[in-house]
């Protein structure tokens, strides 16, 4: 109780400006001061507020300090971009592999048959004087020249399929081998492999991711004379036919590779560039391909009727061509007995 009056008294003395013991003691306490860095910071702040040019120079210094940071950010962004592109490519490759695997599982027998038929076809076409591929002896010299008549002979309406044989003839052995090795891995196709000595490298485990890429590269492949062996050159007609059918099947299933048109254009461009101004005489093989292409668009029942008519007219080879393609497009379709029998023929 007696403390309050005492404090009041001291307070009055304090407020009156008298020197009290407490005030004297307070003045002896350590006198804290802002350090030089704090002073500099405040004064710099005051200067920057008044002088705009100082404000402008600060970002420049900041930019200079941030330079390594920008480098790191740029590197990180580049890595992310590369990873994204790689991921997209991987997805595309996997999708293509799945499609090719699906084709191999769904119609292995049909594919095998088509290959045999395709290998037989050059004999047919030879009757119609189709220079689909050079003879083994003439292969090295005529490889480039033979491209021209084939491609230019293609009908205007069927540029893609017309370009197929030409492009195949033109393509290098490496992509061809890659395509072939992919087929060798699929069941039912291995029996129709390359002649001995011309076989490609050992097949990779299925699914072979780079295979679609390899199959898609012929547009930029080097000329044929670089590495074509005689055996490979002999295989070219078969490969050309084989690829034509495969390409048709891909078209039918809607899984057309994105660069197919580019390949056709590239082939056409190379043809133009090679100076084949004079149009070659019409060829049978592309015409048959064009007919097949048209048949792909037919309803299944109509197509079956057409094949039956071909059989009745004795055009067995054409019927077999159509049937092979038909079975790829409609693998579950129940065929009439005569066509079923045709499909079972070796």
């Amino acid at each position, binding site marked *: 109780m007696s403390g309050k009056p005492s*404090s009041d008294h001291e307070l009055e003395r304090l407020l009156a400006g008298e020197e009290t013991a*407490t005030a004297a003691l307070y003045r002896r306490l350590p006198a804290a001061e802002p350090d030089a860095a704090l002073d500099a910071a405040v004064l710099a702040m005051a200067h920057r507020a008044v002088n705009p040019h100082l404000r402008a120079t600060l970002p420049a210094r900041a930019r200079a300090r941030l330079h390594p940071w920008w480098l790191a950010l740029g590197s990180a962004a580049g890595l992310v971009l590369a990873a994204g592109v790689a991921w997209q490519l991987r997805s595309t490759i996997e999708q293509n592999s799945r499609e090719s695997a699906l084709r191999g599982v769904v119609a292995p027998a049909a594919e095998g048959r088509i290959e045999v038929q395709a290998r037989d076809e050059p004999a047919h076409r030879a009757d119609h004087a189709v220079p689909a591929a050079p003879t083994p002896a003439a292969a090295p010299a005529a490889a480039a020249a033979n491209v021209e008549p084939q491609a230019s002979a293609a009908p205007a309406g069927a540029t893609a399929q017309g370009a197929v044989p030409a492009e195949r003839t033109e393509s290098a052995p490496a992509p061809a081998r890659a395509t072939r090795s992919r087929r060798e891995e699929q069941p039912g196709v291995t029996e129709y492999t390359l002649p001995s000595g011309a076989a490609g490298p050992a097949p990779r485990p299925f699914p072979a991711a780079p295979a679609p890429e390899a199959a898609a590269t012929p547009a930029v492949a080097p000329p044929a004379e670089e590495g074509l062996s005689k055996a490979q050159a002999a295989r070219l007609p078969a490969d050309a036919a084989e690829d034509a059918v495969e390409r048709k099947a891909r078209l039918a299933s809607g899984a057309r590779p994105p660069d197919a048109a580019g390949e056709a254009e590239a082939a056409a461009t190379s043809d133009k560039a090679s100076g084949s101004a004079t149009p070659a005489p019409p060829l049978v093989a592309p015409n048959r391909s064009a007919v097949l292409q048209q048949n792909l668009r037919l309803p299944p029942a109509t197509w079956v009727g057409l094949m039956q008519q071909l059989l009745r007219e004795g055009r067995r080879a054409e019927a077999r061509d159509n049937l092979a393609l038909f079975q790829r497009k409609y693998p579950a379709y129940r065929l009439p007995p005569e066509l079923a029998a045709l499909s079972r023929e070796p």
Partner: protein
Amino acid sequence: MQGESSDEELMLAYGRGEVRAFESLYGRHRGTLYRFLMRQLGDRAAADEIFQEVWSRVIAVRERYRPEAKFTTWLLQIAHNLVVDLHRRQRPQVGAAEAEALFRNLDAPEEQRPERVLGEFEQRRRLQRALEDMPAEQREAFVMRMEWGLGLEDIAAVTGAGHETVKSRLRYALAKIRQRFSE
């Protein structure tokens, strides 16, 4: 020239772009403001931060400054508001009951109090601890009086409290100090 100018004139000059005026103003008040903050916050890092913030606000409003009050009052108002914001988050307030108990213990006459016989270092240490322990409002009023020589009216203007409230806070602050010396 600027040494003879008042705080308000210096602040107006800085508002017109005279950096020298700010330097003078800053030189006048940097120590007292910093000590005020140190006493209030008891932490150098916090004091540095608030100190810089106070001056940055002064700089920001330089062109709008009008000398309607003393510059020191205005400066301390800024500091006070920032410190109060910080204290609201940090320290509980001391109740009135505790303050009454404090006065009941201060019975001894001034000449018989123990601080008379304590050493210089110990006296400073006890005052320091008394300041640290007292409520922020009491300490603030006390430090304003000690550092800036502000009267009751000025302290009331800075803190927004009433005249009698400020007087009471000062009284309690002195009582706390005396209690610390009687322990």
